[in-house]
């Protein structure tokens, strides 16, 4: 609990009841009574104006985890070879991946332009998808000493809409608004849980902006039975445009253009949902998963799919079709020679983003790449097991820059530290079975695709916008001997927060969550909170 907990705690501390005290809050309401927010309900759930015990299950997923179907595409993905050295940044169409009624094409618009789209009654969520047009946006810009930096630093451009306003005038998102804070102990931390939308700024060139993705927005959407119907407005925007009004910023531009689509998801708002996964094999011919047919028939793939389903089942998801695809040889040789993807260039023309542009199977699904390995960045120490292009992924726009998630096999499939640990379809065993560790990482990446952030980032100072996941601030939760290395107190921090420190108490939590930044073979269970589940289930990828 974050903001709601803090305010409740302060209320307990400060509002000591006495005979002259004003009356307290109205007693919580029972199921079926009218409500406008979940805080009014005993059940903690207000749905469509009435307190509810639970949400109904979706027809697509009556019982979690459902039954997954593992399939092999007999055809090689028909991605066109652009030629060596060419950087693909094509604007992709959402059709036929998405039904026409889910998409509003807002055209190609310059930053600074105001745009509108319609949410009809019964719309449960929406995503604004921006794709850079004609290479018109700067890849980076610069902040110098006048902006408060000791030296000039290069900043990757980020596309994110701003001034997102609901019908009736409620401001959902302003990219220039300050971030609210919460104080824990002697330190202030950003608290995104009460905002109506959240964006951490990681999507270059192409990005997806979802509503709802915070606890406050989830409460509002559920309580109203959907997003506010009517005409929504926003301003087309990127950081390079914001740079123009920042002192000490150079290299900005006000002429970048983006192709904008609004993707609206109509009900149901349910406690379950089904998700399809397209899996692209960026592997070597000698890999354990070298062909779609071989992968689909591999017994460890059956276990992998089952374990992915088990972890995502914690959010109410059923895995539907898991379809393996082969990539053309030119794409493998260029972006994943020998089955390894090089992560040294994180730019849009780097191997990873270019590999993502080959994910062109037109399905409303998560698009996941499996490679034999990753080549970690040589600057610093990488240690990357999985990675996403953006949060969330651009569901329905296959083949966009950053439009994929990727997991490295790392010879983990079928690896057992105890013989028989990966046999059959038992419950996941992260300590002894490599297949299950791979499944955990894939489920974590799928969680990002569906809109989830890390519950706590590595330095223990940044947390997700969800109020019912545990938070684990470094200076409060790290081992006493290591707290002087926390980022809150050190200009040269050396302490990173680990799972074992985040399972200790109600104030040091999240260490078991699927979206914690580390996988620990003992502490990680893959748990997901109710609000995380609701965010995931409202993603347009989920049926």
């Amino acid at each position, binding site marked *: 609990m974050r903001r709601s*907990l803090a305010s409740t705690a302060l209320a307990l501390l400060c509002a000591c009841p006495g005979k002259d005290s004003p009356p307290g809050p109205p007693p919580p309401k029972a199921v079926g009574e009218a409500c406008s927010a979940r805080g009014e309900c005993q059940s903690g759930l207000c749905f469509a104006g009435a307190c509810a015990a639970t949400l109904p299950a979706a027809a697509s997923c009556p019982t979690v985890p459902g039954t997954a179907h593992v399939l092999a595409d007999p055809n090689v993905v028909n991605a066109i070879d652009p030629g060596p050295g060419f950087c693909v940044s094509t604007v992709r169409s959402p059709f036929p991946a998405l039904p026409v009624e889910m998409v509003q094409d807002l055209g190609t618009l310059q930053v600074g332009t105001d745009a509108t789209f319609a949410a009809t009654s019964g719309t449960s969520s929406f995503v604004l998808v921006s794709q850079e047009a004609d290479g018109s946006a700067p890849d980076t810009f610069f902040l110098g000493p006048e902006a408060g930096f000791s030296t000039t630093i290069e900043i990757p451009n980020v596309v994110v809409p701003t001034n997102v306003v609901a019908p009736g005038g409620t401001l959902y998102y302003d990219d220039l608004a300050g971030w609210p804070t919460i104080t824990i*102990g002697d330190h202030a931390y950003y608290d995104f849980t009460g905002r109506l939308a959240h964006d951490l700024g990681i999507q270059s060139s192409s990005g997806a902006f979802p509503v709802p993705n915070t606890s406050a927005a989830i409460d509002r959407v559920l309580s109203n039975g959907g997003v506010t119907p009517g005409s929504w407005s926003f301003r087309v925007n990127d950081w390079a445009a914001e740079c123009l009004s920042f002192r000490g910023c150079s290299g900005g531009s006000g002429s970048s253009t983006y192709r904008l689509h609004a993707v609206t998801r109509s009900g149901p708002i349910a406690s379950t949902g089904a998700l399809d996964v397209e899996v692209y094999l960026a592997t070597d011919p000698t890999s354990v998963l070298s062909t779609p047919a071989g992968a689909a028939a591999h017994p460890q793939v059956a276990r992998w799919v089952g374990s992915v389903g088990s972890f995502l089942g914690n959010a109410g998801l059923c895995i539907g079709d898991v379809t393996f695809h082969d990539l053309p040889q030119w794409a493998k040789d260029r972006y994943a*020679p*020998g089955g390894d993807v090089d992560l040294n260039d994180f730019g849009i023309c780097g191997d990873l983003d270019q590999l993502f542009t080959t994910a062109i199977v037109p399905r409303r699904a998560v698009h996941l790449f499996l490679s*034999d390995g990753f080549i970690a960045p040589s600057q*610093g120490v990488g240690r990357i097991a999985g990675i996403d292009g953006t949060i969330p992924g651009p569901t329905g726009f296959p083949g966009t820059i950053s439009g994929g998630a990727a997991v490295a096999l790392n010879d983990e499939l079928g690896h057992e530290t105890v013989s028989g640990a990966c046999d059959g379809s038992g419950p996941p065993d992260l300590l002894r079975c490599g297949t299950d560790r791979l499944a955990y990482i894939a489920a974590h990446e799928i969680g990002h695709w569906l809109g989830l952030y890390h519950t706590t980032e*590595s330095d223990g100072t940044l947390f997700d916008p969800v109020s019912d996941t545990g938070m684990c601030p470094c200076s409060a939760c790290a081992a006493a001997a290591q707290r002087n290395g926390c980022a809150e107190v050190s200009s040269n921090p050396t*302490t*990173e927060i680990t799972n074992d420190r985040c399972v200790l108490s*109600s104030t040091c939590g999240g260490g078991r969550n699927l979206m914690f930044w580390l996988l620990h073979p003992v502490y990680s269970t893959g748990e997901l909170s109710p609000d995380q589940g609701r965010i995931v289930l409202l993603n347009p990828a989920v049926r």
Partner: protein
Amino acid sequence: MALASAAVALALALAAPAVDPPAEPPPDVREQVGALLGAIHGPVRTETFRALGPGAEEALLDFAREENGPPARRIRALEALAGLGGARAEAAHRDVVASVSAPRAVRRTAVRGLGRLAGTSRAPAELSPILQRDRDPLVRAAAAEALAAHAPVEACARIRTQARSEELPGRFQRALRLCDRAGRSPADR
């Protein structure tokens, strides 16, 4: 967690006077290192491992050499050692490359790390034998990439020759791209 109990806990925490955290035994370094090797995206800073003390290098060496250990953990331990540097890290990399039982992905990581540790001056001597004679074509390709990255002037002719003799030369494409880039003038790169 129940809101009420969480609220009470926080209320008590806020109400309590500020005190130093209770004395507790220092965390087990090996466990700490093992936990950090579970990073899904990273990055974990080299300084983080250094701050854990000399036991951190020992633990990383153990994890890297662990015969039946999880391959992903061995890979991350090697990458961390390559960041830390030093003779013991280099020896661990050589051991893994020479291992007959280490998984391919682990050996490929060790080859790349060895290139980083050896640097321009020693990479050709360390990696050329692997480029030309390793039993695994993907390990040979990794050696080509490490050589092209760290010693292109000395090694690219050898890499091109080796690529021509490979059954699947596409595996050498990244190394050849690095060689092409190194052959151009800095302004053209």
